[in-house]
């Protein structure tokens, strides 16, 4: 309709996902028109993303399930008011992040991060494919990574999870966190450095 504004450097990166944006726009429009399947489609498009975000930021499957429910209830209530200033993905990540933050703000930092190891990861041990030694080692690495994440300053944890687990671009992370690109770069680096030291036993 109107002439499209030329993208700046940040928008250019966000526009890389233009195909995804079309699908998102369609979902929002269908929801506005009252199509009850739209919300279900939206849930299936984004629920694994939010569940895994919460699992890694908060640490337990219970938290991940609770956060996922709260996030999608909020999305359901506010989707009509969603404005396409940001992408749907960014908006849902922001809601997810806020719910995670309010959860770990209520809790003291983990004094014994290894205690959460029993919370997940029993099932993969039953996978017969790799040998028992490889499995034990993978499981030990996973436990150390989870412990390192849990013991890390949350601003670094958020940046590293969004970048290395969720695979977001720097510009997307800047949008989700509401900080500048330079801050994103610095937080990712510091989170990775903490992780490296923890895994190398430094």
């Amino acid at each position: 309709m109107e002439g499209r504004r030329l993208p700046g450097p940040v928008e250019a990166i966000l526009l890389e996902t233009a195909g995804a944006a079309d699908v998102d726009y369609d979902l929002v429009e269908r929801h506005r028109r009252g199509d009850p399947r739209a919300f279900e489609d939206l849930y299936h498009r984004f629920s694994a993303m939010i569940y895994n975000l919460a699992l890694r930021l908060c640490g337990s499957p219970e938290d991940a399930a609770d956060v996922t429910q709260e996030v999608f209830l909020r999305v359901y209530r506010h989707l009509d008011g969603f404005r396409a200033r940001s992408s749907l993905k960014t908006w849902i990540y922001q809601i997810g992040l806020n719910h995670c933050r309010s959860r770990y703000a209520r809790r003291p930092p983990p004094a014994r991060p290894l205690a959460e190891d029993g919370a997940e990861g029993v099932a993969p041990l039953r996978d017969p494919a790799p040998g028992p030694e490889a499995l034990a080692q993978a499981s030990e690495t996973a436990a150390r990574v989870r412990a390192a994440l849990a013991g890390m300053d949350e601003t670094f944890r958020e940046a590293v999870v969004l970048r290395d687990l969720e695979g977001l671009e720097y510009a997307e992370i800047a949008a989700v966190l509401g900080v500048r690109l330079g801050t994103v770069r610095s937080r990712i680096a510091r989170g990775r450095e903490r992780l490296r030291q923890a895994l190398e036993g430094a």
Partner: protein
Amino acid sequence: MSRAPAPHLETEILSAYLDGQLSAAERGRVESHLQGCADCARRLAGLRSAIASLQSLDRVEPPAELFAEVRRRAAQVAPESAGGPLAWIAWPARHPGFAGASLAVLATVVALVY
């Protein structure tokens, strides 16, 4: 030892290098430094390995029953359209018949037009 006068690369530079976030000039500087500095090369390898370990964590599917619970709870709350002028008209949407809400909006639009 003192053969390389250039200071060690900052972690932030190494991390950004891994993500392809450096300019061509910065990248060139990093790569030539790495060739002569085992310390920085080792730290870079450590960062790479830390990322790989992180990414080896399982990606977990949310429990299948979660959606039913979300839908059940969603049916009990009204969608809110962020305070737009038509927001209050949409209140019948809190009742299961969403068609009612659409009709209310349609009726209002018709009433406004005529």
